[in-house]
């Protein structure tokens, strides 16, 4: 905790608690043994943006930090839906999000806040990046059959709303 990383995380949490976008949450994950909370692992939730195809559910995501944070970005991972990865072109089969601001070789900057990361991922849900495919099926449907793609997204919205997402 005395480390720079944990200090920054504590401040991020205080800042997020004070002011966070509606419908989002981000908090330390409880330790496995139920004794206290892990500063380096966060449980987060991202709501689908209003009037977009993802509206109607909040998507659970974990963020994992290392002692190198904030020089290195956290690893952001969506929880699986019915045991399958979140259906999105830029989400790897493991659930990991592929986004330029989460890549230290691309647009990651130490000044980026957790709030900004979450908002960035929310935006990515509605606006997939065709230049960085991460999951075969959603990518193929998104590029070739938008109607089917949207149908699958909507189906997933109702599944997640009914609690189909389990942590991985």
């Amino acid at each position, binding site marked *: *905790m005395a480390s720079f990383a944990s200090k920054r995380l504590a401040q991020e*949490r*205080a800042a997020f608690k004070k*002011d966070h976008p509606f419908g989002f949450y981000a908090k*330390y994950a409880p*330790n496995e043994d139920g*004794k*206290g*909370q892990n500063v380096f692992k966060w449980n987060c939730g991202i709501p689908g943006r209003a009037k977009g195809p993802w509206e109607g559910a909040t998507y659970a995501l974990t963020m994992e930090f290392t002692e190198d944070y904030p020089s290195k970005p956290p690893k952001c991972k969506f929880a699986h839906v019915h045991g399958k990865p979140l259906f999105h072109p830029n989400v790897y089969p493991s659930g990991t999000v592929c986004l330029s601001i989460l890549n230290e070789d691309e647009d990651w900057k130490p000044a980026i806040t957790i709030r900004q990361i979450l908002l960035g991922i929310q935006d990515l849900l509605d606006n997939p990046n065709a230049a960085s495919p991460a999951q075969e099926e959603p990518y193929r449907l998104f590029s070739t059959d938008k109607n089917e793609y949207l149908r699958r997204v909507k189906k997933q919205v109702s599944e997640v709303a009914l609690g189909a997402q389990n942590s991985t």
Partner: protein
Amino acid sequence: MERHVENNRFRQEPVGGSGFCTRKAGEIGNFRQDSLGKLVAVGVKTLVLQAMTCADVTAAGDAAVKAVVGEERFAMIQSAKLLVVGAGGIGCELLKNLVLSGFREIEVVDLDTIDVSNLNRQFLFRRVHVDRPKSVVAAEAVKQFRPNANIISHHGNVKDPQFGLEFIGKFDVVVNALDNLEARRHVNRLCLAAEKPLLEAGSTGHLGQVTVIRKGETECFECQAKPSQKVYPYCTIRSTPEKPVHCLTWAKNLFDLCFGPEDESNLLADLAAEMRKFQAQESVDGEDAGRRIFAHLFEEDIKKQAQLEDLWSDQRPPPGPLCYEDALKNTERPSTDADKDKLETQKVPSVAGDAQGFVAAVAKMYGERRELIGQSSFSKDDPVAMDFVHCAANLRMQNYRIGRLSRWDAQSIAGSIIPAVASTNAIVAGLEVVQLLHVLQSVGKNMKDSKARTVWVRFPEPSRKKILQPSSLHTPNPDCFVCGSRTARVALRSLEECKIMALAKGCIQGQLGAHKPALYANGSCIFDPEYPEPGEEAEEEGLHPEWSLSQWGLTSGSLLQVEDEGQGWSINLVIREEPDLDEQLYPGGFKVSQWPTQWWLQVEAGAGAGEEAAKDMAEKKRKAEADAAEATAAKKAQLDANTVALDD
């Protein structure tokens, strides 16, 4: 003599047409004391408003300020963004001074609404404003002086999250006009975290102080320990009072015990059974109850105390019991020549007066206040409660041969109040503006090299003519746990018994002044201010506020990190178990001390057996300091204490 004529002319000059302008307007600069002992502002630096239209007033006022401070400084004044915290006694004066000095960008925060009792000195307020927010009315009022000023008011507590670091970050300087220690500590920490200069001001009675705080350059508000609300050792209160304040503390506890809800932590809980006999009865003859309580407390209980031979010696004779009939015969009033000009409440009553007053107060409680018994609590502003406490304390002082007090003095000690003096507030607010100009000019250089000073305002003693005492700013205390090393030691009796929530509340919030502390140990977060109490939700988050420190794996010597989520402040605590921690000295159960940066010097000095001696010395020193602090309080010379300005 010539000077005198000038002064008189000055004071009599009609100022302005508006009711608001009849006060001495916008004084910048030094104050001097004339031969009559009254304050006059010196020379050209005083600006007097003429009866003009608003635009004229603004233009003329600005021109006058510009003439005094010069073009360059005036431009600085006009563009500076200020946050004023507090719109009460000092705040009203300050806001008026600021706009009349040309400041244009001001936001003001205050929690309070206007009370009738404020009107005598918080001069921006009128009767029609009663119950409206102070910040709003004050902003409206000073806008009439300078319609072009942009003043934004916030009715709220400066501790609310909306006034956090981001908010503070908008301003160039924060100017305090607060009357309580807690809020001043909070703003101090916010300004340190946001790296904004802070003007700190306070007044108590005829004493005042203004100083400048900037992170890393000057002492912060908490670099020097403040005499905080004192907690007296139990046995002093219960058996061996030596000072009036001990008896007043006893009497306050007695009031709550007799008329308040059941409270096991009441210092006099052992008397509870006796007192509650009366509470339970359907109808009680108040007079009779009063006399029986009297006999119980001031006669029988004292006899019992006197028999505890171990407590008494030649230096400390046992107390003398007092029976009601004897008390009534003692009608002599201690009086001095000085008494003749005093109000009745400022004179010490006779013992008979105290005895009758005590019984009358009990009778009132059982009469007109019957339905409030069991739910009352002491307030210095409640006349019946204050009568009860004053008389009870005086009777106890009679038991213990301590000089009794007038009701006036009893009230100021019991409520730890020192009356607010409008002139002191005015002087302090004027000095803040002067210091503010120095701060604005110190941009880019160390505050210590600027003209900014700490200035003390003192009631002039006849031998000294000076009211103002400037002193240069001090460098930060490296051991300060707020702006310096950020490490403190906390000793407690038992890691196994102390719950983490008790540590957070009693020690970290209560003693260290944190607002929303999150606690971390061994790389985990072990306490979250969002879950201060145990419950299912807390448990789901892996939090157990009811766990003891040892359940959390803390041992003597463990390091605990505190991140204050409300103040942007943090501190490291070194926890130490001291099973023999003195309950009398630390009734809260926590001993907090600074962790000196050069701790090795102490270790060397106190090596081995020396440690005990060092501890002893430290304790003696602490006691001496506490006594000194108390003596100061008695003289009402205690600035910055946890005092409340009368009626604020």
